[in-house]
């Protein structure tokens, strides 16, 4: 069975600016929801190159672009119009956002990603906070939909014991190696001085001026 690689599919990331707040259904506005707007500037480009047709969904966070380094999209992710008026609540939203993974941009938090899905999730986080959810409840809300994969800090459970205890295990292994190293070498390397040698040493020492 052959699966189409995901990179060949346009993601949620690729819409033209489609839905503005003006288009939003009446009656569903909330402070957070008012901001549901897809980031502008995104475009669906496809590069046609001498017979080869390649679909570049550039919004897959440059996964398809060949480049040596740092190919993050410029990170100016959180937009002012998303922010909550209550600074305390907004601060909580920011810290939650830093712990949730943007699913379409690799290894970025939703706080760092300007992907539309990340934007939607940021708005959702804020909406849950406004409804009075605790930080954990908000995270669980997202996890219930996307799995523990969205948590940038992996959960502590039997599947991750090795991950969490690994560093300690490594230090202990190092310690044990050092201990064995000393034990093997503890055996006296040279025979102690014989009586004759001791006598000579003493006489040499005594002779010294």
């Amino acid at each position, binding site marked *: 069975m052959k699966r189409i690689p995901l990179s060949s*599919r*346009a993601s949620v990331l690729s819409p033209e600016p*489609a839905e503005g707040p003006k288009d939003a259904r009446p009656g569903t506005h909330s402070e957070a929801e008012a901001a549901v707007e897809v980031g502008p500037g995104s475009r669906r480009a496809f590069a046609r190159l001498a017979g080869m047709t390649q679909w570049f969904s550039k919004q897959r966070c440059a996964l398809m*672009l*060949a480049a*040596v380094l740092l*190919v993050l999209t410029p*990170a100016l992710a959180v937009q002012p119009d998303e922010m909550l008026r209550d600074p305390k609540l907004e601060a909580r939203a920011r810290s939650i956002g830093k712990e949730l993974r943007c699913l379409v941009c690799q290894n970025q938090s939703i706080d760092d990603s300007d992907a539309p899905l990340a934007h939607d999730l940021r708005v959702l986080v804020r909406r849950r906070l406004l409804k009075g959810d605790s930080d954990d409840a908000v995270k669980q809300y997202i996890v219930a939909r996307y*799995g523990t994969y969205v948590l940038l800090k992996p959960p502590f459970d039997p599947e991750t014991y090795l991950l969490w205890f690994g560093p300690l295990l490594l230090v202990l292994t190092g310690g044990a190696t050092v201990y064995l190293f000393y034990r093997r070498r503890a055996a006296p390397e040279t025979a102690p001085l014989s009586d004759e040698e001791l006598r000579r040493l003493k006489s040499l020492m005594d002779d010294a001026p």
Partner: protein
Amino acid sequence: MIAEIGLFALILALFVAAVQAVVPLLGAARGETSWMNLARPASAAQFALVSLAFAALIWLHVTSDLSVLNVALNSHTDKPLLYKITGVWGNHEGSMLLWVFILALYGLMAALFGKTLPPALRARALSVQGMIAFGFLLFILMTSNPFARLDPAPVNGNGLNPLLQDPGLAFHPPFLYLGYVGFSMAFSFAVAALIEGRVDAAWARWVRPWTLAAWCALTLGIAMGSWWSYYTLGWGGWWAWDPVENASFMPWLAGTALVHSAIVVEKRDTLKAWTIFLAIVAFSLSLLGTFLVRSGVLTSVHAFANDPARGVFILALLSVVTGGSLILFAMRAPALRAGGIFSPVSREGGLMFNNVFLSAAAGTVLLGTLYPLFADVLHLNKLSVAAPYYNLMMPLLLTPMLLLMPVGPLLSWKRGDLKDALRRLRFAAVVTAVTVAATLFAAGTASHNLMAALGLGLAAWLLAGTISEWAGRVGLLRHSRDEILHRARQLPRSAYGMSLAHIGLAVVLIGISGSLAWQSETLLVMRPGQTAQIAGYDVHLVGVDDNLRGPNYTTSRALFLASRNGDFVAAMRPERRVYDNPPEPKSTVAIHTNFFSDLYVVLGEADGKGGHVVHLLHNPLVPWLFLGALVMVLGGLVSLTDRRYRVGTPRRAARIPDEAPAASQKVKIPAGVQYAAPALAFLVLIGFFVWRLQEVSKGDTPDVVPSVLIGKPAPQFDLPPLYSGKPDFKTADLRGKVTVVNFFASWCVPCRAEHPLFRDLAKSGIVLVGINYKDKPENATAFLAEQGDPYHTVAADRQGRTAIDFGVYGVPETFLIDKSGVIRFKWPGPLTPEIVHDQLLPLAEKLK
């Protein structure tokens, strides 16, 4: 023509590498001097040929020869000359050529400066270099030919990613590769020593400067990458624990351990097997990084065109290089007899302690980087290991080492006096206590301030301890001024090198602590004439000039005036550029630094109402981070100039053995399993990689997120219809029939590709529901009118909220829901006939 010359040079280089790999090795085994001596001209020829190929590729890029695929894909005629040159290594093929070029450069240097080396050791080491070069040249020629032609040539190229159109690209990758590839020298000499069965002080004295040079380059390369990301990406951070960053940090940790353990081999003739092991590990981790980044087994923001076929090749290369050397290690290391013994409290003991923690840190980064891959292979819950994990583990692992860092140099070799060392650190202890108290007093005792106090305290301890050690050695406060100056001059350069490197680390630590604890930011919409406050600064937006032209971009440039208490501080001009080719945005950050902190201004998008989104950051002590890294590199360079290590003048006293085939007869049967353990562990690792690669090549790429909703009831929703006048579509409507729910959008290209399949599906008697995702109704209806409307019901999810409840992360996605409303199957991505007929339909039949 130029491209063909380059390709031909590469092919010739491959043959030269084969000769260089085989003949000197045989010569060393048979004691044939002329065979051994072939290694040197071969290295020179190798360098000449690879340089020719590299120059050819640069020429093709500079002249924009678009009939070359690599140029067409990665360049554009409108690019400034600098980026035409640096763009050569801004892509996979070119960067591999840079890698091989640097490898050949090191080979040439070893051949030139290694005149005084024992001929057999030199022949074997250069032969190993030849093997590595052979592997990489073969890799380039078979999978990544930078000279491949394109016929017909396109009118113009695709251009270079704007983020790479930065002077940083000129320096960062070359230095990084000088570091990675530099470790190949230590590796080659380690393998040569294993073949000979002998490691001695002369070996260490030769290997150490090369390792140190590589370490300096790698440190500089990493620091530059970090700085680059700091000033180009506009996120205000400098390290993200992305797999690619980890791939450079792991060899750095191993290389740092190696630089230290090689001292013990040189001075005390012990820890030989361990040092050899580290030399193998440092280079292997460099190779592993290459594999992880370019094979597609892990996801990373640093995008190389991932290609499992290349992954297979690099994996084979990694297996041969690392596996082979580890097997050799298991066979030969037990025969390396250790020299001097020492007590746990001694200089050697301190260096060993340093090695334990540095290695554990490297191991932890490796574990964190590979854990998602293990989880994928073992079908555990898919997980992410990111910054929160490393930010917890690294301080835990490195704090003990930092605590002991000032103590180690105060201990004497063989047997040290801990009490005396601690007594000499009284001054440092006082400085540390004062630093911690002052930090807490000034900043308060919130948790981030506690962390900062700990970090700054450690830095103060290291700084004051290092200075105390130097003061003790020159007899500060004990001698006359002339005597002190005399002693200071007499101290070897390597002592200054160590002090500088340790001081540099302390400064880096200050930068890390300050920026992690006290970064502040403001995000707002500003109109010209408005002023925002951050960290005591008033930042006034004068205006924004739109549509300014750069060489190959259009830009909006803002003018901000920063002031503090009414005093003018700086004029700052952040930009927001859109490049012509490829048409992508890039923001140019304006940074004002006063050495203690950075004021950092990022210009965001216009809001269409005369305002601009502005991101203001205040980054305390970040300049120290980069400055500290430079001081560390300086320390390494100073140490390199030490008379004993000066490259090219290894001591005449180095023993030159007259018999070449050494040790091989003397080798005993391995004494313990511990020497075989790394090879076995590596075998398991390779097993994981092979398994994962095979899954990735079948399409199970790491960015496929399995649904957690399989077997769970469909979420609650109530969506309006796409066509007005129809009823809403609700969760309850799913009851009693087998339903296929397809999320689609008119703007989604793959949706068009899969669309015809739904006609077949609709015929099979399954209820087909389309949910139109974040679309304009008129676009969606036009799309369905044009492509045909196979759906029984079409609902509109304008906000994308229901999609989130379904766990959709990209369109198209398709769900199969049974009669009781439970989700039974999900396909992320466009459907194919195989999936429909082999999976979806059979399952639907069963559920009916």
